[in-house]
């Protein structure tokens, strides 16, 4: 039973990492209508930026993480503005953009390899004490991850519901043409969402790397399909769906480790992904949404 509660605790941690990543990915999809296959590498880049601040410059982890995520704005802006959006604007076969994101993934992952090398790295975080919170046994760092994700989810919620930007985002996500016609500056909002998505990816990458303790340039890519599972579960383009998806997938993945060898626990996410696509491609949330 203790094992079970522990796994739920871990599930919350995984869900937190997933939530940050999945919400970022799904918000960007809502604006642009294509999946960014380089997203895993965005996460990896965030992790390495954090690492540079933390290990090379000696900053404590959490400030390094936040600043690293902010710094993500630069590469994301460049990539979305000069590489991705020029393709998205063209009429013609839409499949080009998926390959372009795949090519961006190739370029980004190799840039990271060239700059930081392929060896496994760790953060400078000192001792990490386990803490008993109710029935759960989690470390301080893991609590930090959960806390960060919770704060971000609340912030996203407020952004979507209380700000003009948020309303514009929801409008564009619903119907881009209609939103443009009613005077919403779709281009500017899309750019802002790209940056937001990049920063969330940076946060997610940093905490993912923290949670696995040793990471290399592949850390984001191997997690990518789990993020896909969370995004698809909740319905692509739906941020609240992504949050629910992250929670469900995170818990399922960790609890499954009680029953199967933990090397395969992420693979469970694949089963969920496939299951959802077979049964309800619009995502589970579409059952709950209007009509």
């Amino acid at each position, binding site marked *: 039973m203790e094992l079970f509660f522990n796994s739920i605790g871990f599930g919350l941690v995984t869900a937190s990492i997933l939530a940050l990543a999945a919400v970022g990915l799904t918000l960007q999809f809502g604006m642009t209508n*294509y*999946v960014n*296959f380089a997203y895993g590498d965005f996460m990896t880049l965030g992790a390495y930026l954090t690492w540079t601040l933390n290990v090379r410059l000696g900053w404590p982890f959490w400030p390094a993480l936040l600043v690293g995520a902010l710094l993500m704005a630069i590469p994301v802006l460049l990539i979305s503005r000069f*590489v991705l959006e*020029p*393709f998205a604007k063209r009429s*013609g*076969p839409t*499949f*080009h953009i*998926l*390959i*372009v994101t*795949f*090519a*961006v*993934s*190739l*370029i980004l*992952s*190799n*840039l990271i*390899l*060239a700059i930081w*090398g*392929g060896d496994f790295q760790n953060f400078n975080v000192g001792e990490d004490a386990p803490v008993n919170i109710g029935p759960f046994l989690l470390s301080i760092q893991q609590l930090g991850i959960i806390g960060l994700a919770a704060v971000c989810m609340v912030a996203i919620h407020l952004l979507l519901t209380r700000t003009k930007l948020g309303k514009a985002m929801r409008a564009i996500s619903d119907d881009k043409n209609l939103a443009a016609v009613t005077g919403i500056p779709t281009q500017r909002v899309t750019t802002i969402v790209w940056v937001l998505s990049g920063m969330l990816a940076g946060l997610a990458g940093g905490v993912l790397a923290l949670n696995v303790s040793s990471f290399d340039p592949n850390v984001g*890519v*191997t997690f*990518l*399909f789990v993020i*896909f*599972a969370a995004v*698809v579960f909740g319905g*692509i383009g739906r941020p609240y769906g992504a949050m629910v998806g992250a929670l469900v997938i995170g818990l399922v993945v960790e609890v499954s480790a009680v029953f199967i060898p933990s*090397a*395969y626990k*992420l*693979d469970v*996410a*694949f089963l969920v*992904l*496939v299951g959802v*696509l*077979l049964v309800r*491609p619009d995502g589970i949330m579409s059952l709950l949404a209007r009509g």
Partner: protein
Amino acid sequence: MPHDLNYYLATLAVYFLIYCVLTLGLNITFGMAGIFDFSYITFMAIGAYFAGVAVLPPSNVPGLQWILGLNLGFPIDLLIGALAAGVFGLLIGLVAIRRIRSDYLAMVLVAVWTITWSVTSTTIGLFNGQQGLIGVPQPFEAQLGVNPNDYVFVFIPIAAAALAILFAVAYCVERSPFGRALRATREDQDVAAAFGKRTVRLRLTAMVIGCVYAGVAGALTIEFLSAMSPNAWAIIETVIIFSALIVGGRGNVFGAVLGALLVRILIIEGTGLLPTLPDHPELIGATRNILIGLLVIVVLYFRPQGVIPERRRRYFESRKPAADPSSEVTKGG
């Protein structure tokens, strides 16, 4: 020394022949049917691994483990590898190839690669884990008793024969009503269905054909190199095969062959000749991959059809004298 040069060129020739098989297969799956098989390299690995465990005897070295170990000869092991890749592709296709959007399909296929890769890397008993299969006997090695340095010259006709068959098949597909139905499905799946095409079945067939091609390429690779490990099939390998096809020209067999030449031989081998920096051994490879990625983006932006575009076929028409406007030579692009 001339022998070293011959050896090097012969090895290049083998790599080229095998890569053509890869691009020809992807050309059917992606070039003609429009399926983003982002897991493509996985099927090369399946073909390689199953061919390997078909030709290897059961492991008798402690620390090395693999399944099967059937100790069969060539070309049976190649056929087993191709069959395994095809079956694997069929199983995945049955689940994934449905009326779902292409980006969902791409996501599922990325997941397929990820999981296959992680399972084969961590499960030692399957295909010897991270170390991979080694010591795979080469075709006719024992019978011919050839000096290992000269073996490559034996392998060239083997690879060439396999490619010749697969090229002929791809060429027939390209010119056939089946190929035309694939292309229509690629252009607009709903409209193709509205005209009676069984689009799910067509796409599934195209995917499985591509997987078989990849399986053959994998089997040839492991037969030639005697080894296959997870390092050889990272996800970027799929991107590079896509790049080769896009640069060379998709939707036609000649573009696939040209792409193999340009990307696999010119770019990859070319950059391989650059001197390595001792402190940063990964820099050459990283630079090469960045170049390939940039090349794909540039090609997709300025000339998406590639160097050799999909041929605009004329049906049953003889070349009439230039005065007849309906016989204008096809413009490129």
